[in-house]
């Protein structure tokens, strides 16, 4: 059993561990770095490579901004080309549901001084012509974001740390951290022990077990995602991409391969990096929808990624006791923030004062609500769930404007027969969308001469559609001398066109205007309830027409309404 001593022990050779080691050794501190496997073998090396400030929760924005400011010089500083491309991050919105939410989220980020804007689809396409416009509503765009090669970044910091004198033990799993009476902490591994005044615990999901032994229940879940890379392709885009309504991300690497993944979130209790063909297929299908001509590209390799995630989507960076400084749970944001976090951690370790920038990430913030159900971060749902993200409620109506809110219709106690069309003039705005929708459904055009439903305007503030009310009496059917009418499955009288002679007996027989004549067809036309899903109901913007069970009294009321206003149809 070998024993080591150091000023600081760092557990975890990922981005946070390596940057902290680098910064500390630069300051002349004696550092021992341990990793269970190899450098960058966990979340860091499996990362999607995004270096972004946008789409972060508010508290994390200052950290991300400070970190991104370091990136342009890192290749020179580390002596490794980290393949950093600062061409912007686009968070693509594919569905209307997310449009307004994203716009508002953009405004939130702007309020934190971030140069991020909402782009309509036209502007997105102008920026990235290789996307498919059919699949995109718009995107948030942060021009200062970008991406880099994660392994090269981590290795770069590692090499520099070694150069500066950091000692390293790889393939060396820490099993326990014990506080000694000497005031030092002792780290135990199967073959080594090491003591130091400070232990920086940056082992990603692996930190959870060690925290538990210390007596802290680290609220961490592991989110597995799957990554893959294609063969080298000609240049498609330089930006980093995310997708608002799922977890797909993609970028094109320096050698031309398209690196993508996600869309396949899976919360697991363990560090699991396997991949599944079904998840990979989903991601491939998703990216092919967004990027033109990608379906022909060959996939070179796939791997599973890890996002150790906290309930609020932010890392936990705090001392657990006098010796142990925890920095874990970066929720997939560690690669981008790592370089600055390393600087701050090194400061904290040296002067014992928590840097202001790290204050929001204290562990006390979860006190009292650890039992609540939470969504893994990295998903938009988590971002949207944060309190300061404003989501404008779609179609929020003002209850104070009386004709704006449709009444709640209740099913009658004794529904008679099948559902029928019911109109409510209080809600009708006179827009004629019902006419248009009906006409399209039946004639594939807005045929003004043969409307089955017609809006009338008895006064300048009272409008209603006149349409067949599907009465019990069926006057039209009874009088038809040519057997040109039948009752269909929905209980509506419909026309058998071959038999109709255009004699118009039915039109005269109907007291409520339910049948009209079509000169174009030389036949009469009427509502047939569209196989049970009436087009007029579907496209009425205000629920002025509904399709529901009504009782006899309501049915009579409807008949009176139609009869009263039928004369207005001549002058509409």
């Amino acid at each position, binding site marked *: 059993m070998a024993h080591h001593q150091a000023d600081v022990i760092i557990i975890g050779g990922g981005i946070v561990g390596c940057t902290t080691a680098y910064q500390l050794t630069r300051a002349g501190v004696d550092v021992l770095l341990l990793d269970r496997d190899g450098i960058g073998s966990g979340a860091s090396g499996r990362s999607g490579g995004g270096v972004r400030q946008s789409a972060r929760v*508010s508290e994390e924005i200052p950290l991300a901004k400070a970190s991104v400011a370091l990136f342009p010089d890192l290749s020179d500083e580390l002596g490794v080309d980290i393949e950093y491309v600062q061409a912007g991050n686009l968070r693509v919105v594919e569905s209307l549901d997310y449009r*307004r939410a994203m716009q*508002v989220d953009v405004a*939130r980020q702007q*309020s*934190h001084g971030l140069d991020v804007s909402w782009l309509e689809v036209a502007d997105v396409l102008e920026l990235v012509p290789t996307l498919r416009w059919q699949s995109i509503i718009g995107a948030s765009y942060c021009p200062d974001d970008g991406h880099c090669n994660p392994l090269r970044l981590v290795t770069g910091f590692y090499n520099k740390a070694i150069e500066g004198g950091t000692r390293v033990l790889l393939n060396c799993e820490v099993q326990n951290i014990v506080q000694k009476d000497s005031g030092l902490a002792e780290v135990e591994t199967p073959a080594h022990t090491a003591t130091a005044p400070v232990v920086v615990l940056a082992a990603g999901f692996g930190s959870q077990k060690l925290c538990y032994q210390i007596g802290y229940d680290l609220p961490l879940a592991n989110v597995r995602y799957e990554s893959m890379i294609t063969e080298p392709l000609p240049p498609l885009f330089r930006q980093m991409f995310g997708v608002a309504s799922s977890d797909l991300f993609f970028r094109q690497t320096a050698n031309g391969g398209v690196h993508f993944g996600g869309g396949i979130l899976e919360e697991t209790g363990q560090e699991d990096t396997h991949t599944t063909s079904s998840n990979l297929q989903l991601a491939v299908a998703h990216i092919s929808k967004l990027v033109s001509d990608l379906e022909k590209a060959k996939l070179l390799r796939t791997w599973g990624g890890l996002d150790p995630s906290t309930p609020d989507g932010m890392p936990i960076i705090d001392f657990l006791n006098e010796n142990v400084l925890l920095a874990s749970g970066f929720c997939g944001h560690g690669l981008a923030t790592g370089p600055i976090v390393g600087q701050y951690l090194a400061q904290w370790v040296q002067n014992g004062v928590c840097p202001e920038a790290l204050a929001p990430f204290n562990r006390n913030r979860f006190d009292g609500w650890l039992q609540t159900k939470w969504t893994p971060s990295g998903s938009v749902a988590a971002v949207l769930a944060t*309190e*300061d*993200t*404003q*989501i*404008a*409620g779609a179609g*929020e*109506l*003002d*209850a*104070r404007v009386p004709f704006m809110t449709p009444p709640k219709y209740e099913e009658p106690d004794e529904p008679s027969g099948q559902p029928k069309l019911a109109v409510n003039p209080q809600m009708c705005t006179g827009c004629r969308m019902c006419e248009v929708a009906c006409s399209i459904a039946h004639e594939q055009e807005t045929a003004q001469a043969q409307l089955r439903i017609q809006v009338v305007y008895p006064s300048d503030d009272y409008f209603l559609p006149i349409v067949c009310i599907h009465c019990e009496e069926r006057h039209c059917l009874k009088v038809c001398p040519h057997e040109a009418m039948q009752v269909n499955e929905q209980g509506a009288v419909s026309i058998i066109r071959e038999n109709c002679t255009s004699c118009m007996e039915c039109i005269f027989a109907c007291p409520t205007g339910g049948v009209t004549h079509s000169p174009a067809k030389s036949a009469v036309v009427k509502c047939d309830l569209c196989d049970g899903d009436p087009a007029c109901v579907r496209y009425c913007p205000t629920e002025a027409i509904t399709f529901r069970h009504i009782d006899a009294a309501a049915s009579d009321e409807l008949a009176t309404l139609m009869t009263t206003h039928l004369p207005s149809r001549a002058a509409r």
Partner: protein
Amino acid sequence: MIEVTVTLNAGLRHYRSSLDVGEVMPLHIPSGTNLRELLTQILQIPPNQVAFPMVNGIKCALDQPLVAGDRVALWPPVAGG
């Protein structure tokens, strides 16, 4: 405590139906309260309903702390032509 004034406009009015159109509501709030806290804790209006939070006529971020005498005016998403 400091005093600020609040007006609710358009659809936000239904959170205080008793107010008249454009009525200014004087409120005493703890100093250091920011706009978000004013919304969530005092006015009980979900911040996501507010598209145009204005303080003294300037559109502001929700974490802006309020100072005595601030005139807060709030709108849901609106537009016109």
